[in-house]
């Protein structure tokens, strides 16, 4: 692929800072007005001399520029035959140094071999269903382009005819045909179009509020988020925030771009002000609350969370944030004392990590592990945590079970489920299914005797049998088959057991028992 112009252009684009800095108006002038290049400083000259390309002619700058831009696009999208070969003042550069022909050449071959000459064009569709343009009542562009007015929903069949309408409208889209000398004279439409294409533009002339808003609406109308944000940056610098906020209120798309931009720039204060001005108090509260994630020091983080308590959260969220503060406050206290604790449990099972910033349930687990049995008066006791954070019985049992089973405190496990009825009898009761209890115990490698006890408590006989089989609780299996009067299964199961083991003998006895009326 023969390639021209691009090299020079990329040099140009970064020399563009020689443009005079405007003080109050942001001139986001990325590819500067090339005529200003003549003011290049001496060191630039040196730089240019070192480049192997001929000097530029600055007269017809915009055209030149658009051609450069176009050839770049041509290369990028490997358009094949570049027919405008009139740029003789530029040396031809073969890029990638490969012999003419290899890659790009083959592309050209592929492309041209499958060419046919039919003209195709696609119709325009309306992207904004009922509300086309928000805010500023009218826009010239919409009249010119025959775009549907607010409320008028354009059907697709209608949209087909629109291409023809467009041909009568002032032609603003062809980059080459504009012929304007000053980019500052351009309409909002044209300016936005130039911004989209990365060509020279100037926002200086958009000084009246109405012009600024026309510009913003035009950017929104072409769906280009990059340009919308660019216009917003300009508005941010050239409008007071009160006015900008007010105008954004009626422009949802632009508003969301602005919020995202502020988030990415880390302009927290302004963002909070904006949300407040919009009356989005919950979002504002959350945005402020989010800041705590950036605070590493736990003391400062706690204080910050405390300051969040007065923010206008929704009722539910206010409770959660209060919990967050209380939790961290407790964790700091627990951490300080446990760090130097020398109780046996800490020696036997040294702490792997600090408890700071852990979730509530993890904290509860920790407390069931290291501080089980402490009185409710201490912050670190499981019962205190349970009460403070309104933890459900089910959740509490699950967590305590996990922690005590991990420590193999089967006695504690046992007492978790003990309840006394009014006659004083002890009964096992659980808010979680006993099959789940068995699972957890097994995961913590509980011995068969313990497992067996809980398997026996499962209500559903089928589930009970399956669990017993899964965890090899022989007694339960045998009793289940006996209750089912399933002789065959017993015989089968006997074969899986060690000969003369107690279980084996138990099956033997059962099979020999003549009083049982087997079903098979």
């Amino acid at each position, binding site marked *: 692929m023969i390639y021209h112009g*691009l*090299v020079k252009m*990329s040099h140009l684009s*970064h020399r*563009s*800072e020689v443009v005079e800095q405007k003080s109050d108006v942001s001139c*986001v002038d*990325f590819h500067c007005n090339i005529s200003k290049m003549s003011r290049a400083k001496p060191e630039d000259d040196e730089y240019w001399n070192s480049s192997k390309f001929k000097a530029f002619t600055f007269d017809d700058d915009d055209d030149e520029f658009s051609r450069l831009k176009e050839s770049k*696009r041509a*290369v990028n*999208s*490997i*358009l*094949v035959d570049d027919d405008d070969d009139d740029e003789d003042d530029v040396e031809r550069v073969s*890029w*990638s140094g490969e012999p003419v022909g290899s890659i790009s050449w083959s*592309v050209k071959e592929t*492309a041209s071999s499958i*060419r*046919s*000459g*039919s003209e*195709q064009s*696609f119709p325009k*569709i309306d*992207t904004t*269903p009922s509300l086309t343009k928000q805010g500023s009542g009218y826009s010239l562009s919409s009249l010119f382009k025959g775009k549907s007015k607010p409320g008028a929903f354009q059907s697709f069949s209608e*949209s087909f005819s629109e*291409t023809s309408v467009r041909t009568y409208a002032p032609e603003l*889209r062809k980059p080459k045909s504009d012929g304007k000398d000053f980019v500052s004279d351009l309409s909002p439409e044209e300016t936005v179009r130039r911004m989209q294409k990365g060509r020279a533009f100037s926002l200086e002339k958009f000084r009246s509020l109405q012009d600024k808003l026309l510009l913003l609406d035009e950017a929104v109308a072409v*769906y*280009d*988020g*990059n340009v*919308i944000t*660019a216009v917003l*940056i300009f508005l941010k610098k050239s409008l007071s925030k009160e006015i900008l906020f007010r105008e954004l209120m009626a422009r949802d*798309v632009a508003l969301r*771009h602005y919020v*995202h*931009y502020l988030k*990415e*720039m880390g302009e927290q204060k302004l963002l909070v002000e904006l949300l407040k001005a919009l009356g989005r108090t919950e979002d504002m509260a*959350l945005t402020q*609350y*989010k800041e705590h994630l*950036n605070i590493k020091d736990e003391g400062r983080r706690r204080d910050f969370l405390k300051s969040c308590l007065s923010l206008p959260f929704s009722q*539910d969220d206010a409770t*959660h944030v209060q919990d*967050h503060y209380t*939790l961290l406050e407790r964790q700091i206290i627990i951490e300080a004392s446990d760090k130097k604790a020398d109780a046996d449990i800490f020696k036997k099972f040294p702490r792997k990590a600090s408890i700071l910033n852990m*979730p*509530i349930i*993890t904290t509860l687990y920790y407390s069931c592990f290291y501080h089980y049995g402490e009185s409710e008066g201490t912050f670190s006791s499981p019962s205190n945590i349970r009460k403070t*954070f309104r933890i*459900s019985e*089910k*959740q509490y049992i*699950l967590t305590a079970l996990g922690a005590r089973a991990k420590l193999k405190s089967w006695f504690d496990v046992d007492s978790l489920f003990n309840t006394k009825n009014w006659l004083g009898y002890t009964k096992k009761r659980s808010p979680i299914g006993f099959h*789940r209890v068995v699972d957890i115990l097994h995961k913590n490698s509980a011995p068969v005797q313990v497992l067996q006890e809980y398997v026996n408590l499962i209500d559903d006989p089928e589930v009970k049998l399956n669990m017993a089989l899964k965890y090899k609780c022989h007694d339960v299996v045998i009793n289940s088959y006996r209750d089912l009067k399933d002789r065959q299964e017993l015989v089968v199961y006997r074969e899986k057991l060690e000969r003369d083991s107690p279980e084996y003998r138990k099956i033997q006895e059962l099979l020999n028992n003549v009083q049982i009326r087997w079903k098979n």
Partner: protein
Amino acid sequence: MAHTERRDAPELPDFSLLKRLARDQLIFLLEQLPGKKDLFIDADLMSPLDRIANVTILKQHEVDKLYKVELKPIVSNSDQLCFLIRPRIQTVKWISDLVNSDKVAGRFRRYKIIFTPQKFYACETVLEEQGVYGDVTIDEWNFYILPLDDDILSLELPEFFRDNFLEGDQRWVTTAGSALHLLQTVYGSFSKVYGIGRCAKMVYESWRELMEEGEQRTRQPEFAKVFLIDRDVDYVTPLCSQVVYEGLVDDIFRIKCGSVEFGPDVTSSDKSIKVMLNSQDKVFNEIRNEHFSNVFGFLSQKAKNLQTAYDKRRGMDIQQMKAFVADELKGLKQEHRLLSLHIGASESMMKKKTKQDFQELLKTEHSLLEGFEIRECITYIEEHINRQVSMIESLRLLCLLSITENGLLSKDYRSLKAQYLQSYGIEHLLTFANLRQLGILEEQQAGETLTVMESRVGKLVNDKTVGKLTDAFSSLAKKSNFRALSKRLALVPKSGEEYDLRIPRDMAYIFSGAYIPLSCKLIEQVLERDGWTGLEEVTRMLNGQDFAVTGGSGSEARNRTDAQRIVLVMFLGGCTYSEISALRFLGKERGCRFIVVTTAITNSARLLEALLDNHA
């Protein structure tokens, strides 16, 4: 069980061209900074870069050292620094700091930023504000599309999803338009475009503008049709557990840019292996679209065949043996290696899934899809949360519950949210706010009985007044309407019917016969009807935003070439491997081929992780 390709399945265009174009442009850009230079690359650009160039190529163009962008102070002695980055404000700020600290230290270097796929004004403004505009040269590497496989093209822009759908930032709209434009320029025009979704419409417009500007170089199209679809049209599908081999591998091992790293548990050695997963891998190619339950049988059959092939050696004479070694052995060994790898992977996945009670999990998902025993599902999810099982999995189930039920009852929402925050951290308040914003985890508004209403409305399609009623409803809030859609499009096959997963009868096979992915069903329906006619009610429930347009001179009528049977589907916001499998299945059924263009490959974990806000 390996599907035999239909004899007349059309040939796909050669997408490797796109890689060469990207590589050549990159080389050109590197040459813009002549002399030795150090190259800093954004972490998420490294894999895509690997697919199109290698270190040797970079070295040939005077790249001295390669660094990953880590947003930390750098150690480099080079006088020229080149940054190959995504256009992100944070990265540009970091570069500005770097330049400024060099200035303070009186150090002179040349700096060049290459933004890919394009630059943003916001980034340039940062350079300007930090006073380094002009000290840094800027270029764009228009690397829009990375071909991941014969039929998968990726923009490799995972942030597209969050930026567009959560933040409402349309910065990537023109990128997607440009990607389409690139395809069109290289491979020819399309004769017909269908689409659904707000973003899809904008992308179409952006692309059309590009088309009008560029000189028309039309020629016979290599694709007949294009279908553009927004991710938010269907959140259910990407939130379901994947059970087709490729999807499962992605869920468990995470395929990155078409390559996966299998750990020691798979390789049964002490090291990990990186493997490319694509159609070049003969074994993988045969199982990628299969339901996982078929894979074991297939692999063991394959192993037997391999054994037989090896066994041929017995009783060979020297000549035959020589021929065997020359012609077959290499292939057999290759197959052997791949086979043992995929067997290892299957085993490892099996183990992991058994451990987490996958069966029970799937049962819950299927109940949610069917709208059956919702109370039991809630209890299951609650227990999941209480036991602090995977934070993402719990969130996934909550979202599935909310979408399929059109929001949670107030009391359920509050209690599940409170329990979630207790188990996984209160800072997830922010995550919940995001999910609500996106509409995938919501509380039903007081007095809202839309679910029942709407499904009733769904039955009375032809009644115009009822149609208006639905309009009024959908303007109230963006509802998922899943239940009604599911009924209307028959997404959930009647339960009780046996579904033979070895001989799939429809796209539901990718979810064990329990659910036909909504996204793919829409594509099927629209292609069948050649538009949205007859689907008015469906599109209404999807909040409108559908379109279908034909190119000016309708090249359709001309000759029925292969190209007429190639359909390009562009997913805006990501698509899953399961959806790709479903489309491959559909293609085989209909004698056409689908090419998937996606902003990124996604799955439930990636989708939800993009919405988390629990860290700084």
